[in-house]
């Protein structure tokens, strides 16, 4: 495998940036001017020296071959990760204008790469021995799990009581009580070690101020919360797959112990959502041969970009293992057999009617599901009053866009790409509507990120 064949595009590099300021600073460093001795090796290492304001140039190395996304090392003092030098170097490399020549890494770059390889090797052997010897005392672990299950049961029972009280007095009173009541209940659920319940309860607090139609939404969410409580309390009576979904919805940790599936995984979309505590990154993958869709989740502390970064449009030859639960799409990335490479493959698509049906079918396995990933074939974005919809080019069927999708700038990129003609769109389809994430033009052309 030669590096010349797998250069990334500038968009893919810029997608690694932790924030807009880094993106801007990095793109300015993506020209040959400040760089010297820049090079790349066949093993997927890119290095270079960047002239900064100091007398000594910064030494920047990037390892793009790593399974968990690129790794960076730079001698600059920036706490941004990756720093602008790493971004600039990758842009220079992505530009492919000969500024980064193929060659042998200098000692300072080689040392770091060597160190990384060794650590990874140690981790692998350590992991293998740990799993063979078993972890700690199984009896103690079982007791811990039991204690936690008891706490959650107490929490779920308490929550059932609160929901019953609410319904007895009427939802209309919820409008006056505001956030306070729900924040307190959420805190109780955190104490009960049921973070999944806590998060759902916290969201209830925002519904009364979410505009017209809020009683319907509040009743829906209360009912689904009740369903989850009941699922937990009667988990022994549930089929295994559904019981696993209930456990993960409640917030119990699971391990991705499904059988590893090796495939050429196309990166369909990557986007971050952030709250006050946590940045969550979602990466959607599509297996070219298996036609499976998988979701990788990665977290970062508030204000920091999660570490895993996979640019849209690349294909990974890698293994992916699913988390437990029926219809579970969440997976963990396992071994990666080659560096990510650009690809022209596109996922197969379906009609709008089929996409809506697919969401309905997925609810059988997971009634709490908000949306399913789906690729729409030959759809046209159409303005519909102050909203938008994606309509089949060949049938009178359309999916409305979600309220959040309507306000994103990506909507206009989608509209511009289409120009009134059919496009292929990947996104999430659910009860709130469709959220477009990536689009492809009808003819030749790269994937266009919409998020």
């Amino acid at each position, binding site marked *: 495998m030669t590096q010349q064949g797998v250069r990334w*595009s*500038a*968009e893919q590099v810029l997608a690694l940036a932790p*924030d*807009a*300021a880094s993106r*801007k*600073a990095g*793109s*300015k*460093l*993506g*020209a*040959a*001017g400040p760089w010297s001795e820049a090079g790349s090796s066949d093993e997927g290492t890119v290095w270079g020296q960047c*002239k900064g*304001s100091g007398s000594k140039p910064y030494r920047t190395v990037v390892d793009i071959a790593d399974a968990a996304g690129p790794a960076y090392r730079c001698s600059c003092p920036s706490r941004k990760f990756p720093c602008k030098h790493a971004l600039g170097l990758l842009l220079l490399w992505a*530009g*492919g*204008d000969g500024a980064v020549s193929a060659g042998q890494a200098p000692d300072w770059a080689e040392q770091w790469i060597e160190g990384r390889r060794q650590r990874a090797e140690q981790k692998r052997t350590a992991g293998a021995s740990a799993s063979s010897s078993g972890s700690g005392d199984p009896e103690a672990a079982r007791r811990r799990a039991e204690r936690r299950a008891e706490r959650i049961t107490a929490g779920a029972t308490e929550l059932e009581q609160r*929901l019953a*009280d*609410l*319904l*007895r*007095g*009427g939802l*209309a009173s919820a409008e006056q009580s505001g956030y306070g009541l729900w924040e307190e209940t959420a805190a109780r659920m955190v104490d009960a070690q049921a973070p999944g319940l806590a998060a759902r309860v916290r969201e209830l607090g925002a519904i009364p101020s979410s505009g017209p139609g809020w*009683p319907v939404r*509040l*009743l829906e969410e*209360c*009912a*689904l919360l*009740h*369903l989850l409580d009941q699922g937990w309390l009667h988990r022994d009576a549930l089929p295994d797959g559904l019981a696993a979904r209930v456990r993960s919805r409640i917030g119990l940790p699971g391990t991705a112990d499904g059988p590893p599936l090796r495939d050429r995984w196309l990166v369909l979309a990557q986007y971050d959502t952030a709250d006050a505590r946590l940045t969550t990154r979602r990466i959607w993958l599509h297996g070219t041969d298996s036609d499976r869709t998988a979701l990788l989740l990665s977290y970062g502390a508030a204000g920091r970009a999660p570490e895993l970064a996979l640019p849209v449009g690349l294909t990974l030859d890698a293994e992916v293992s699913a988390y437990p639960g029926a219809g579970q799409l969440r997976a963990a990335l396992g071994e990666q057999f080659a560096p990510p490479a650009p690809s022209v493959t596109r996922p197969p698509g379906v009609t709008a009617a089929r*996409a*809506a049906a697919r969401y*309905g079918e997925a*609810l*059988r396995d997971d*009634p709490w599901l908000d949306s399913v990933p789906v690729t729409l074939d030959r759809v*046209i974005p*159409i303005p*519909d009053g102050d909203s938008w*919809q994606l*309509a*089949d080019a060949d049938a*009178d*069927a*359309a999916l*409305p866009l979600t309220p959040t999708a309507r306000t994103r*700038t990506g909507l206009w990129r989608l509209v*511009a*790409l*289409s*120009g*009134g003609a059919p496009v292929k769109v990947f996104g999430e389809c659910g*009860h709130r509507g469709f959220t477009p994430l990536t689009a492809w*033009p009808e003819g030749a052309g790269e994937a266009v990120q919409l998020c």
Partner: protein
Amino acid sequence: MNRTSTPVDAPASGAWEELVTAALLGTERRTPPGGAPGREAPVALLDAAAEETVRRRAGLRAARAAGRPEPAAEDPRPVLPPAAARRLALLLADRPGTGGGGRRGTAPDLMELLPQWLAAANARGFAAPPQALPALLDAARGRTDLRPAALAFAGPRAVWLARLNPDWRFALRATPGGGAAMPHPEDTEQTRCLWEEGLFAERVALLSAIRAREPAAARELLTTTWSAERAEDRLMFLDSLRMGLGPEDEPFLEQALADRSRNVRATAAELLSALPGSALAARMAVRAAACVAVDHTGDSPMITVEAPHECDASMERDGVVAKAPAGRGERSWWFGQLVEATPLGTWSVRLGGRTPRQIVALPVTDDWQSELHAAWCRAAVRQRDPEWARALLGTPSAPEAGGPGAVSLAERAKLLGTLSAVERADWVAGFIAAHGLSEAFQLLGVCAVPWSAPLGRAVVDALNIARDAGSYPWSFSGVMGLAERCLDPSEASRLDGLLAIPDETEDASPGAGGYWAEAFQRLVRTLRLRAAMAEELGA
């Protein structure tokens, strides 16, 4: 999909409504429908609501499609090379307000390169990548100077998009007829219809378009409705005749000299005076020549000036403004206007067969020199007479060229505009070599981009001298910025010697050397970037 699609079967929706009502009021006040035995009312309600919620969600169906918009017109231009498309994305990502700010450091100012990039892409006739259009339109929205090039590059799809997004309405205004197609040149019926019924902006655009193709046709079209137009509109329409102005326009302009509106009369007179063969120009020549003569009585010949004593009705009809602005003498005001509108060819004949250079060199009596020379400058610019412009500019290295001489910097810049690009660059290069950069900004602005080799070298040398003189680079930030955008990228290698931080000399400003090195680094980087941009576009 809730909003637009119907649940699986209608009766269920009625049951849901009842559940919502009961939930809203509370089960104490309203007993929910159904209700399993042995369950408390609120729990039974939650059971039913959970079932109903999942059922409603599972039963969602695709909605009916709303009216489809007409697809955007096909863009026949070739697709942008991938490297150039990535560059465009980078240039557009560097929007003001996306972080940073403050001191620029050594990084190129990408947004400033966008106009050049657009010009190069337009010159090669590439189509814009559709997904880049929103960012491009947003950039053009904030900067009106970008709009013409950005909209030309953006092509028909941008107009299509602008109809869907009110933020980009300017794209519709800029396009003639709000995107409605211009009538075909042969389609006289449609042309007439648009001319008689169109909006003002549409009519101006129509007139300009026809004028560019067939000057006489535009004038004839204007004549058909001329007397019925409002004064402001007449002024704008008359102004569009400036393009492709020729002797055939004289009768129409002569007639406009009698217009009701003073501004229309003045504009007509100005246009006529730019036609040296016009009757108005001849009348002005007679008046002006009467005021200027060569006096041979002294040791050497001198020009004497006798300014007009009155501004009569015929002068006013020919566009002379009778009332002088505050602080100016009436007679010199009238005199200036006469000379300005007089064909420059008159003077050689009038002043003893001398060449323009000899005439400009003649001394002028009684402090009339600045008035006379300034009027000649305006005439040379208006009549686009390079020979006179050359004479009035003088040699660039002459001492008075740098100081506040008879000809101001603004006038010089205008005079330079009448010369060829090569001559212009050579003159400015000579000026910079003799006088440095402090006065050069305005003059550099009229030079063709990229700068010619001699001009580029003169600027770099002058910057080098300024650095050695110990001043700070920000005193020259204007010229530096111009150099980043206008210097020929092939000059970058000549700058290598300037990138290092020089040893600080005693009389230098503290730290200046470092800032200069930084400024030169930015210059070199920007030049390299421009070279890369040009290469990506196949220049």
